[in-house]
């Protein structure tokens, strides 16, 4: 009898203690793939939020080295009914798969705040007229350039080709180029912004035809090929070679700014950032990349959803937004922050952010098509085929268009 009472008491303690500790504290989880400085920036934002909101505990979970890993885990968790409270999403993931399981944020984010976010960023977070995500870690390709070698950055396609060729050098006289005028990490995004700069349209009005083999697409692919003739193309990142002075200019993501700064500082390389050189239409478009944050409305409690909304609003506040973009190099997207004296002071200390800010206003989003990832993969294969000499630009794009109907039903 005595033993039964003791056992009963122990069981009650085990069952009730977590509940009593949790009483009044709502735990929310955030899945991401940030590392290094980006992870530190997120952790410090979480610490500031928790200090101001002791009733909420934010648990950040690193979910893999690549965006694909995060996506697979989000899909599996959602299908199993156990998603995190907040997930990071690339735009192409949301249509179809996650759209209906993410909480509408139109009634959570005040209209004045939405109005303060750059329109492209809002549009990219809106799916079928409903705001499902908020921009958090958005980036775009910009032109990094060595100011000692490139006093004025190229502003057009032709200028870039000319300057790239002029800057190639064989410094050690062994007959091979060891300082490249331009470095390119080729992929579908690079083709995409050249395509849009040339005035390309992705689809016909009812989205039954993929139109990348248009004159704009061929022009974009030919420009990429022309750059291939004069520049260094590789799958590795360029921050290291650029910092070492082996590459005078390169297209790279704004998310790489911390790495560029570190490499350039190590070698004393002066550098700056400019928007991507403009195409035939005179616009230096880049593609809006990386991620927005959304709150799951399935598999999460109302209390957790409310706490998550508070956390996102905290991250969107002018102070936190300024802190986040200055620490990470992700794009600024709140107009009031861009116009603020604090931002101007930051620009004075970090002049390269002027180029980043200009590019943010010239960033365009991918279409919200449910099979966009598959279509993007066709573009990637077309770029590969052209750059490796397998197919001519027109042929490669026709091949992509011919395979597209599988994904356009």
């Amino acid at each position, binding site marked *: 009898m005595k033993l039964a009472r003791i056992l009963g008491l122990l069981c009650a303690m085990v069952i009730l203690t977590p509940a009593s500790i949790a009483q009044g504290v709502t735990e929310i989880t955030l899945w991401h793939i940030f590392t290094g400085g980006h992870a530190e920036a997120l952790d410090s934002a979480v610490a500031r939020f928790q200090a101001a909101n002791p009733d909420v505990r934010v648990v950040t979970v690193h979910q893999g080295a*690549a965006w*694909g890993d995060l*996506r*697979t885990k989000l*899909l599996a968790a*959602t*299908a199993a009914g156990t998603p995190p409270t907040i997930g990071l999403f690339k735009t192409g993931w949301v249509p*179809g*798969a*996650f*759209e*209906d*399981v993410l909480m509408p944020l139109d009634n959570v984010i005040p209209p004045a705040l939405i109005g303060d976010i750059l329109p492209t960023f809002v549009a990219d977070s809106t799916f079928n007229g409903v705001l499902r995500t908020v921009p958090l870690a958005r980036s775009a390709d910009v032109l990094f350039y060595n100011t000692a070698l490139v006093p004025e950055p190229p502003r057009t396609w032709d200028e870039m080709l000319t300057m790239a060729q002029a800057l190639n050098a064989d410094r050690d006289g062994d007959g091979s180029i060891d300082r490249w005028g331009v470095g390119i990490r080729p992929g579908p995004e690079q083709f995409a912004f050249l395509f849009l700069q040339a005035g390309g349209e992705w689809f016909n009005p009812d989205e039954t035809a993929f139109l990348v083999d248009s004159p704009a697409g061929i022009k974009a692919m030919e420009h990429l090929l022309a750059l291939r003739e004069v520049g260094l193309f*590789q*799958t*590795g990142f360029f921050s290291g070679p650029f910092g070492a002075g082996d590459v005078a200019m390169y297209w790279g993501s704004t998310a790489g700014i911390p790495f560029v700064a570190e490499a350039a500082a190590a070698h004393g390389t002066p550098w700056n950032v400019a928007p991507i050189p403009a195409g035939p239409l005179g616009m230096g478009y880049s593609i809006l990349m990386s991620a927005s944050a959304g709150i799951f409305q399935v598999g999460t409690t109302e209390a957790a959803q409310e706490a998550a909304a508070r956390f996102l609003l905290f991250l969107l506040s002018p102070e936190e937004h300024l802190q986040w973009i200055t620490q990470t190099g992700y794009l600024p997207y709140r107009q009031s922050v861009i116009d603020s004296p604090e931002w101007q002071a930051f620009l004075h200390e970090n002049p390269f952010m002027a180029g980043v800010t200009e590019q943010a206003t010239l960033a365009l989003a991918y279409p919200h098509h449910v*099979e966009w*990832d*598959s279509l993007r*993969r066709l573009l*990637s*294969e077309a770029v*590969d*085929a052209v750059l*490796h000499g*397998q197919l001519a630009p027109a042929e490669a794009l026709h091949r992509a268009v*011919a*395979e597209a109907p*599988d*994904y356009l039903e």
Partner: protein
Amino acid sequence: MAKKALRDTGEAYLYLLPAFLILGAFTIYPIVYALYLSFHDWPLIETARRPREFIGVENYLRLLASPRFLGSLQNVTIYAIFSVPLSISLAVGLAVLLNMQLRGQAFFRLAFFIPFATPAVADALIWRWLLDERFGLVNYLLSVIAISPIGWLTTPALAILVLVMLNSWQTMGFQALILLAGLQGIDKHYYEAAKIDGASAWIQFRHITVPLLTPQIFFLSVTSAIAALGLFTPIFVLWMGSPGPVASALTPVFFIFETAFQRQRMGLATAASYILFVIIMVLTLLQFVAAKKRVHYDQ
């Protein structure tokens, strides 16, 4: 007597019950459910806007007309045609050498078996570093003999070759051990009689060793062909989640993976897996039919 037999049988089935339950839950049920799903358009995450929908054989018809799926079948067929005979041939040669009782035999046996014992992901990562165009050891060694760097992982025409080389390196050791066991089971009297008749080493190999190794060769050809048609992991690791340049390394299993987890078209993916299952089954049955006349069991 009959009661005792019944009791013994029942007892046996009781002991087997846990295994049956696990097999049923994790193997049989998924197989049957996948067949059911293959007749549906099923997004991984079902919502009111995207419900599961019965569409009959539409998934199968779509696949049989899909250039991408048919291309994946073509790629894996070419890969299997080269990788299976090559790895078995190399394994036969290695087994013969190991059977010669040369010095250091234990070391070589271990050295050749290590790639098979190493996880496939680690093997593929090693090869990714070896074949890197700028920093890889292979291109460095080629540069020593004045050969320009080769884009092993960036040239579509070389994708299948890379996979064949990796597979041969990875499986040769294990296959050699199987064949070595077979070699050591061959009666020495055959060789003695052949020597007396004046048969050369090559004649002995061709008319004694190979025919009496056919059971092991048959076993390896069936298992290797099945493994070849199910190729996925090396591709995923070598090309970091993509099916090679211009999809030159796209295989049916990779197609199933991207259809299920990137496109979330589970019905289409399960239909593709059933088509692959039928192809493997037909191929295996053909191999068994061919084996009746070509495999010699030493009675």
